[in-house]
């Protein structure tokens, strides 16, 4: 009976609160060997500042990293919100029932399940059935697990000296591949990008992307959900959930792999033309999902959407202190082929006059506005003020280039202020090495959408424009 009740309670999306922010965590298969995942998970919990109670489980008992070790799950003094099993597949199955009966969520880390063949699939059935009996939910198996910066829960195995975990943020990341997910997070840690949660679905014997998408759709902390998916657990259900979520917050998906197609219909023209993932592409459009094509786009678009505002029209004003950057940007904005097919705004006479007479008499007042190397922080302030008042401008792309003498770190604050208070959505481009990177981190800290190249800045604009169109579309099809 109690199992059934637990099951019932565990069906609402908010149940994942206990996964993200568990009161206590058991690590089954805890180890004293620093090279073993059973040690690393404990170390992660300790070093990431996890504040809940930690229960290492190992028949040998003793103490690891100052935590008392329990000889079996039975001996753990209370039921736990989360149990991480760091044992090999067969051992995992063997002790699974003892863990499931005392845990709300179980993460079996081990590979060697369904991905290896029939025997592994049977083991998956076995743990799934046990979990159902107790109303326990499984993430995985064959997963690096989860990483939640805000609560310090981290089950991932990486060498700390050679990789970084990002800090807290507003991006929720659901990934089918653990390694791709961890690599992506490591690489964007360079800019101090933060995440609200990272969850690796693994073999997905129980919890799938649809439930998590629904959860993060409701989660107040997450402003955007980014996903790496190779195959959908249930395509139609995904569309239903995604349509609901994308009304509230953006979803970006990196979808890899191609869809297999039924035999009979392949004799038809339509069947043959349906190759690649043309159907998925259409489906995403119908549920407001934005597509990324690699891990860089995935996080760039996620950041643009988490920090930026939807762009309501095609007319872009570009501000730069480097003429060439303006010219290349213009090509990228206007070209349909290697570009985003939007328009350079025709600035109003009033704006041009303001810029020419009051701000920067030496600058070109045609769009792109080239303020030249003589530009100062205050000049940027004045130009951004003028552009924010221009009816002909739908969004602003401003390049913060710190290499010239009159530009200082203050520019970050000035642009941040316009990003927060200005009427127009704004994207920042910055180009350069160490110093530029430091400035990027400051923009990132201020939640200003900043990108380290012309192309990536322009693509962010395109995505913010797409988001506005998606919101219009979802409204229209609803009516």
């Amino acid at each position, binding site marked *: 009976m109690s199992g059934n009740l637990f099951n019932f309670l565990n069906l609402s999306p908010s149940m994942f609160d206990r996964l993200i922010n568990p009161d206590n965590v058991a690590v089954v298969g805890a180890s004293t060997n620093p090279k073993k995942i059973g040690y690393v998970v404990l170390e992660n919990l300790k070093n990431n500042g996890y504040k809940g109670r930690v229960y290492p489980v190992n028949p040998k008992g003793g103490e690891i990293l100052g935590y008392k070790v329990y000889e079996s799950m039975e001996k753990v003094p209370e039921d736990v919100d989360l149990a991480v099993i760091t044992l090999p597949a067969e051992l995992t199955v063997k002790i699974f029932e003892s863990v499931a009966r005392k845990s709300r969520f179980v993460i079996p880390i081990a590979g060697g399940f369904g991905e290896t063949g029939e025997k592994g699939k049977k083991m998956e059935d076995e743990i799934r059935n046990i979990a159902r009996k107790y109303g326990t939910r499984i993430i995985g198996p064959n997963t690096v697990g989860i990483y939640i910066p805000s609560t310090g829960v981290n089950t991932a195995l990486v060498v700390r000296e050679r990789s970084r975990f990002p800090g807290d943020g507003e991006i929720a990341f659901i990934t089918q591949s653990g390694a791709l997910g961890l690599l992506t997070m490591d690489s964007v840690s360079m800019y101090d990008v933060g995440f609200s949660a990272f969850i690796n679905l693994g073999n997905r014997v129980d919890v799938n992307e649809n439930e998590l998408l629904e959860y993060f759709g409701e989660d107040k902390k997450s402003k955007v959900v980014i996903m790496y998916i190779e195959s959908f657990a249930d395509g*139609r259900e995904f569309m239903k959930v995604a349509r609901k979520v994308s009304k509230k917050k953006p979803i970006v998906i990196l979808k890899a792999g191609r*869809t297999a197609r039924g035999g*009979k219909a392949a004799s*038809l*023209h*339509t*069947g043959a033309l349906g190759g690649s993932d*043309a*159907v998925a592409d259409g489906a995403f459009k119908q549920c407001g999902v934005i597509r990324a094509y690699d891990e860089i786009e995935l996080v760039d678009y996620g950041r643009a959407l988490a920090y930026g505002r939807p762009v309501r029209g095609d007319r872009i004003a570009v501000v730069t202190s480097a003429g060439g950057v303006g010219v290349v940007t213009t090509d990228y904005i206007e070209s349909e082929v290697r570009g985003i097919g939007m328009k350079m705004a025709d600035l109003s006479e009033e704006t041009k006059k303001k810029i020419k007479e009051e701000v920067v008499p030496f600058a070109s007042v045609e769009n792109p506005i080239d303020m030249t190397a003589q530009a100062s922080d205050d000049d940027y302030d004045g130009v951004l003020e003028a552009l924010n008042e221009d009816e002909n401008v739908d969004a602003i792309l401003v390049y913060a280039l710190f290499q010239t003498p009159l530009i200082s770190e203050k520019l970050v604050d000035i642009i941040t202020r316009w990003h927060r208070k200005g009427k127009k959505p704004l994207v920042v481009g910055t180009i350069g090495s160490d110093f530029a990177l430091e400035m990027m981190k400051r923009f990132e800290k201020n939640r200003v959408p900043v990108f380290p190249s012309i192309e990536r800045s322009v693509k962010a604009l395109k995505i913010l424009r797409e988001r506005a169109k998606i919101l219009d579309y979802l409204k*229209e099809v609803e009516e």
Partner: protein
Amino acid sequence: MNEYEAKKFLKKYGINIPPGTLIRTPEEVESIDLNYPLVAKVVRDDIIHKSDVGGVILNICNEDELRNAIRKINQKFDAPALVEEMQKGGVEIIVGVLKDSTFGHAIMFGLGGIFTEVFRDVTFRVIPITDKDAELMLSEIRGKKILEGYRGIKVNREAIIDLLLSVSKLVEENPQIEGMDLNPVLAREKDCVVLDAKIIEK
């Protein structure tokens, strides 16, 4: 489902097909009420690509030619023929349906002929679609300019959108359908007409 049955099916959903009739023997020719020129096509469930096997006779201008055509088809395929009025003008488009293993039934739209064969210029949506979806499908193919009026070519966009919506509805109400090719469809100034139709059921 053969072409004759497929077209009857389409007609039930208000989809425009050429005036035509099924003719079994040369003797039945006298009773037809169709305007020449006509086309005669073999109707047999196992023949999907009729023109590849010589099962399509075009430009039939009078009763004698029609009688000959029917006789030929009877002899060659031991099967009846669908006889239809030849259609003129417009732009060839293709509308199709497939059943995707992830998303289920999906509808495809594209420009016909070289655009689909060479450029694969087609777009998909999951069924059911809204009129907004249909409209977006028309405007996102690379050859979209042709549908907007190009060098004297004029097409009725509303008629194409209606066709897509009708196909979506038909499949929604008949989920046993596994695949469909409406190819070609002529998109004309006033209407859309389905010249050939293939429907595969489970």
